[in-house]
C-alpha cells in the first residue's frame, strides 16, 4: 500500500487540471443505540465488530482494519490517504474502518457517528460519487436499522449533520488563484453561497500545495440532490476562473512562470533534504507545469500519488521505523522524490 497511491488517484477524471477529486460522505447511526460519545466501551467494541463484519459482506474487495490493532503511525498513514479522519486517527474509542481495495469507498465505524460512509471519485464527478454512495447507503440500510425520524431525517450525534447527513466536497488545485492573490474572493463567494472553503492540508485557510476543498454546510431542509447542486453550480465558475488566471499568467509572464516551474522540477530532482511543506509547494508547481504543458518527465498521476506518498507517516512506515527525527524524514523524502523523478 505504501509504495503506491490510492488506485483511484492514478486516474484523471473530468476537469482534472483543476479538480482533483469529488467526495460525498453520509453520516448514519444505528437505531435504538446510544451515540458514540454516550455509549460504553463494551457496547462500542461490539458495535465495531458487528458493523465491520456486515460492511465486509457488502463492500466488494473490502479491507477491514481495527483501530486498536494499528500503531499510531499506521493510523496516520490511513489519514494521509484520506481513508480516515484526523479525529479517528487520534481516537481511543473502539472503532474500525472498512474500505475497498481501490480506496474509492471507505466507511468509518465509531468516529463521531456510528457510520461515516464515504465515496471519492477522481475529477469533477459529484453526481457519480453521490450515486455510488447512496447505493451503498441503501444496501447498508437494509442490513442494519438506521436511526431515522420522519421529521428530522437521519439522526446524528451532532446537530450540524442531521437530516440528510450529507457532506459533499470537491478538492481543487488553484495555484493560479493563489499566485494572483484572489483566494479571499473565492472564500467570500463560497461563504455567500452557504458553502465552506478551506485549505485541504493544513489548518483553516492555509493551504499546502495550493489544494482547497469546497463543501456544503447545511444538511437539513433540502434534498440530497439540491445540496449537491449547490456545489455543482459554483465549481464550473471556479474552474473557469482558475483557467483564465493561468492563461493570463502564461501570456503575461511566461518566462517567469516557466522558470518557477522548472526550478521546482530541478529542486525535486536533486535536493537532499526537503520538508513536507516545501515538497508540496514544489509538487504544486510541477502539477501546474504539467497541466500547462510546460513540463514533462513525470506524469500527472505520478505527481498526484507523490502528494500522498511524501507525507510523514508514509515515509516512516516505509522504513518500518516508529520514531524518525525530522531531518531523517526530510532526507528520506528527498531520496524518495529523487528516485521518482529520475526513473525515466
Amino acid at each position, binding site marked *: 500500500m505504501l509504495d503506491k497511491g490510492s488506485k483511484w488517484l492514478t486516474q484523471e477524471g473530468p476537469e482534472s487540471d483543476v479538480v482533483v477529486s469529488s467526495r460525498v460522505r453520509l453520516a448514519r447511526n444505528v437505531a435504538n443505540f446510544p451515540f458514540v460519545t454516550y455509549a460504553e466501551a463494551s457496547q462500542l467494541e461490539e458495535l465495531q465488530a458487528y458493523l465491520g463484519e456486515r460492511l465486509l459482506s457488502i463492500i466488494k474487495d473490502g479491507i477491514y482494519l481495527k483501530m486498536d490493532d494499528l500503531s499510531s503511525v499506521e493510523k496516520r498513514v490511513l489519514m494521509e490517504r484520506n481513508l480516515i479522519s484526523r479525529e479517528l486517527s487520534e481516537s481511543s474509542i473502539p472503532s474500525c474502518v472498512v474500505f475497498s481495495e481501490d480506496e474509492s469507498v471507505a466507511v468509518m465505524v465509531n468516529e463521531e457517528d456510528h457510520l461515516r460512509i464515504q465515496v471519492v471519485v477522481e475529477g469533477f464527478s459529484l453526481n457519480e460519487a453521490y450515486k455510488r454512495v447512496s447505493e451503498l447507503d441503501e444496501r447498508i440500510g437494509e442490513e442494519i436499522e438506521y436511526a431515522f425520524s420522519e421529521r428530522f431525517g437521519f439522526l446524528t450525534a451532532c446537530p450540524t449533520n442531521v437530516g*440528510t447527513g450529507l457532506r459533499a466536497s470537491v478538492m481543487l488545485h488553484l495555484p493560479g488563484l493563489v499566485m494572483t492573490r484572489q483566494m479571499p474572493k473565492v472564500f467570500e463567494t463560497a461563504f455567500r453561497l452557504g458553502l465552506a472553503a478551506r485549505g485541504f492540508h493544513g489548518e483553516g485557510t492555509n493551504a499546502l500545495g495550493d489544494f482547497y476543498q469546497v463543501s456544503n454546510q*447545511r444538511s437539513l*431542509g*433540502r434534498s440530497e440532490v439540491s445540496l449537491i447542486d449547490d456545489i455543482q453550480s459554483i465549481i464550473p465558475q471556479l474552474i473557469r476562473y482558475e483557467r483564465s488566471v493561468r492563461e493570463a499568467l502564461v501570456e503575461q509572464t511566461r518566462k517567469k512562470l516557466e522558470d518557477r516551474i522548472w526550478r521546482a522540477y530541478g529542486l525535486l530532482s536533486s535536493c537532499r533534504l526537503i520538508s513536507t511543506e516545501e515538497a508540496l509547494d514544489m509538487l504544486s508547481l510541477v502539477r501546474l507545469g504539467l497541466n500547462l504543458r510546460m513540463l514533462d518527465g513525470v506524469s500527472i498521476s505520478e505527481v498526484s500519488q507523490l502528494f500522498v506518498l511524501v507525507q510523514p507517516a508514509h515515509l516512516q512506515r516505509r522504513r518500518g521505523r516508529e520514531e524518525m527525527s525530522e531531518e531523517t524524514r526530510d532526507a528520506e523524502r528527498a531520496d524518495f522524490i529523487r528516485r521518482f523523478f529520475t526513473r525515466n
Partner: protein
Amino acid sequence: MILCEVCKKRVATLHITEIMADGMKRMVHLCEECARSEGVIEAKQAPHTLQQLLQQIMEQQMGDVSEETRKLKCPECGITYEEFRKRGRFGCPNDYRVFEGALIGMFERLHGASKHQGRQYKKGGKGASKASKLLNLRQKLADAVRREEYENAAKIRDEIKKLQEEEENESERRE
C-alpha cells in the same frame, strides 16, 4: 477615571486621538460597548462555518431556554437538555423526540430549516430489525448485569439465545 462620552455610564477604556480636517487633534474616550456599536471596533467575528455557529448557539446563555426545557431528560440515555447544550452532542436517537420542541428553533438557526426534505428511509427488512434487536438485547443484558438485576439478565439472555438460534436456522436454510 474618565467616563465614556457616549453612554456616560461606563468607564472609558479606549482613548482615540482623532485628527480633524484642519489638522487639529481631539481625544475621544469610549467604553468597549459603545465603541462596538459606533463601529469603531469590529463586532465579534461572525461565524463562518456551521460548526462555529453551533458553538455560538451552545455558548449562548441559557436564558432563552425555560427551566422546564432545561430539565427535559431522555428516559433511554439519561441526558438532559442542559447537558446536551453543554456538550454539543446528543446522547441517543431518542433525544430528538424528547427535545423536539427546543430543537426546532436550533435547527432553524443552524440549517435554515427544521424539517427533513431528503431521502425517506423505511426501516429495513426482517434482517435489519433482527440484527439491531440482537444488538439492543445484548446492550440491555450488559446494563442488567451491571445493575445486578440477575433475574432480568437471565430472561434477556434467553431471548438472545432464541434470536440467535432463529438466525442460525435461517442462514442454514439459505445455504
